[in-house]
């Protein structure tokens, strides 16, 4: 049991940190611009592909920095020439613009890189087991992902709390109208925030593409779950995103690691339901099979009972 708990925590933390890398940029963008960016996971995918391709020429370590920058620039262009144009029509068209963009990005990725998964591997320097626990190895790359995520969180924290740019962003997270009142060039700030947010997603992609698989469907797979994180954490809250990411990561991993069902719970209290009864499917459904819907259940419950999320400052 201890083994299960330790590994669930380790694995859940890892998955949670990957989620956090994706969702922190999204929550920033939403908090500031009010745009629920449906294409966010597409930028994550671009990060993975860019890192793979750049890495072929420069090696992983250079790509780790170049890919997010390149994707961030694309993000800036998308904001400048796309979103800004749509901004005047309101938030729904903005959201729909990113919705369409997700389609376009996926098709372009298929066009340039093809449909097969990329051979995007752990760099040699990190390809060794870091430690062994209960006879199971913990690969160094996983630890590296954790380190990158933690560094990113600390960096964001310092940026938001200690720098002028961060103060502006923070101010606009809670009061978007105030920033222009202070005389800041809001459209330009928006462009940079969008670029920065997409760059963060791309950084998630650089490591996530290795940890998971780099293929054209990766954005579609991650898209909805990122929304769950952002909404559960509270729109616009970085700390909320972190907590929600880890919560969802651990919750899901834990559900996978144990085989509980209502039937077993019932058995504890001496209560049984026949296999033929109407609710048997539900009754004998074990946690492993429920795991994938847990985040969405959490999302719906959260929105019903606490719409501003765990740490959200304002309701939307």
């Amino acid at each position, binding site marked *: 049991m201890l083994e*299960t708990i330790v590994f669930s925590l380790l694995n859940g933390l890892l*998955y949670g940190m990957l989620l956090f890398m994706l969702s922190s940029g999204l929550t920033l963008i939403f908090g500031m611009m009010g745009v629920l960016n449906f294409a966010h996971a597409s930028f994550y995918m671009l990060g993975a592909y860019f890192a793979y391709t750049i890495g072929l020429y420069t090696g992983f370590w250079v790509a780790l920095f170049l890919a997010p920058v390149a994707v961030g620039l694309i993000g800036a262009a998308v904001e400048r020439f796309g979103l800004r144009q749509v901004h005047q029509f309101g938030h729904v068209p903005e959201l729909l613009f990113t919705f369409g963009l997700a389609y376009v990005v996926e098709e372009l990725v298929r066009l340039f890189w093809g*449909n097969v*998964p990329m051979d995007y591997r752990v760099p040699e320097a990190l390809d060794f087991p870091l430690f062994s626990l209960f006879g*199971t190895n*913990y690969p160094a790359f996983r630890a590296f992902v954790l380190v990158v995520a933690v560094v990113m969180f600390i960096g964001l924290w310092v940026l938001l709390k200690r720098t002028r740019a961060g103060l502006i962003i923070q101010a606009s997270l809670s009061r978007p109208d105030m920033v222009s009142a202070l005389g800041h060039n809001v459209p330009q700030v928006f462009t940079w925030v969008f670029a920065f947010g997409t760059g963060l997603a791309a950084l998630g992609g650089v490591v996530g593409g290795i940890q998971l*698989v780099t*293929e054209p469907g990766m954005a579609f797979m991650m898209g909805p779950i990122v929304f769950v994180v952002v909404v559960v954490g509270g729109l616009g809250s970085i700390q909320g995103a972190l907590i929600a990411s880890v919560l969802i990561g651990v919750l899901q991993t834990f559900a*996978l690691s144990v085989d509980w069902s209502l039937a077993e719970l019932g058995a504890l209290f001496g209560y049984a339901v026949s296999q033929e009864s109407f609710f048997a499917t539900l009754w004998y459904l074990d946690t492993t099979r429920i*795991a994938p819907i847990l985040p969405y259940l959490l999302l719906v419950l959260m929105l019903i009972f606490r719409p501003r999320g765990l740490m959200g400052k304002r309701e939307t």
Partner: protein
Amino acid sequence: MNHRRRMARALAGLAAAGAMTVASLASAQSGDPIRIAYIEPLSGPFANVGDAGLKHFRFAADRINDEGGIMGRPVEIVPMDNSQSPSESAQLVQRAADQGIPFVTQGNGSNVASAIVQSVNRNNQRNPDNRLLYLNYAAVDPALTNENCSFWHFRFDAESRIKIEALTNYMAEEGEAEKVYLINQDYSHGHVVEEQARQMLAEKMPDVEIVGSALHPIGQVRDFAPYVSRIRQSGADTVITGNWGNDLTLLVEAADDAGLDVTFHTYYGGGLGVPAALGEAGAGQLTQITEWHANVNVDEGHDEYREWYEAFAERYPEIDWYYHRVYNQMYMLKAAVEEAGTTAAEPVAHALEGMEFESQTGTVTMRAKDHQIIQPMYISVMDTDVTYDAENSGVGFRTLAKIPASEATVESSCEMDRP
């Protein structure tokens, strides 16, 4: 002809409706080819699989055409994008019938396959002048040749139970497995694998203990580490899985990362994209059960087929020739059409029924009772020391055992309505 069709296709981008007419004119004028509708996902998350299959069929068709076609008529593969959707596929069957295409082929997803069978049955019943044959090259759900069998359906891949039968025979002979873990995708194919594996292991190897099993959601698990730690805790030395695509890749990668030392017996370990993603992670650990693999050509000295394999690799460097059954299917179809002297569905179906065909791997038979092909099967293991590696990954497959066709078979409960 190819050129004219392309031109028509590009035009079409401009004015869809108008250009469609041009396209159909262009193909109608060019010497009456025998057309085969290829219904697979060519867009969306499964497009890589559909794309690879299309390349196989196009290559085989070009080969047949170079050799003079079928009854002097060229073969043409007509790709149709079903986005991996059963209902979309059912519509495409309709379209194929409309266009007078006599053959449809498909393989990815037993759910899609059963939709196509339904649709073909219905069309052939309501539309007797315009019947279709469905040539299934990869959907392995036993139901298709048992309770839901159809006169219009022919399967060129071994059904799921045959694969398990062959695999458990091998395991019993080899006798290394003591504790087995079953992990499968949570849908009918996965359920069949788990159920059959339990049953056949109990029959053939009563000493073997099944120490655990898991069904996971298909295509949704991103990190298999939790499953791997469950496998490890169960103390298993062998894992049997019917997983395919990313679900297999991620599973074996996670096992390798965690240092889990077990043997994986898989259905689709050599499947498209899996070797490339796994690389040496799978060497020595992963077996597959297939009707053929590249190094069979070397072991058994099929020089002509080696040339075929290499020509394909030259034309499509990013993938390998993987579906030997596409070869069987195309040449068996050619033989059947030539025997029937027509492309009409019913005579061709009668010609295919019971057909014996000399393939590279030996004689293969299209069993008349249920339209299931019976062919030799190979159990092979991933290895670095092979002539042909798969997908430039540095690892390829080495034969562990060849199961003759007579043993790679199971009974069928099919009771077919014949016209």
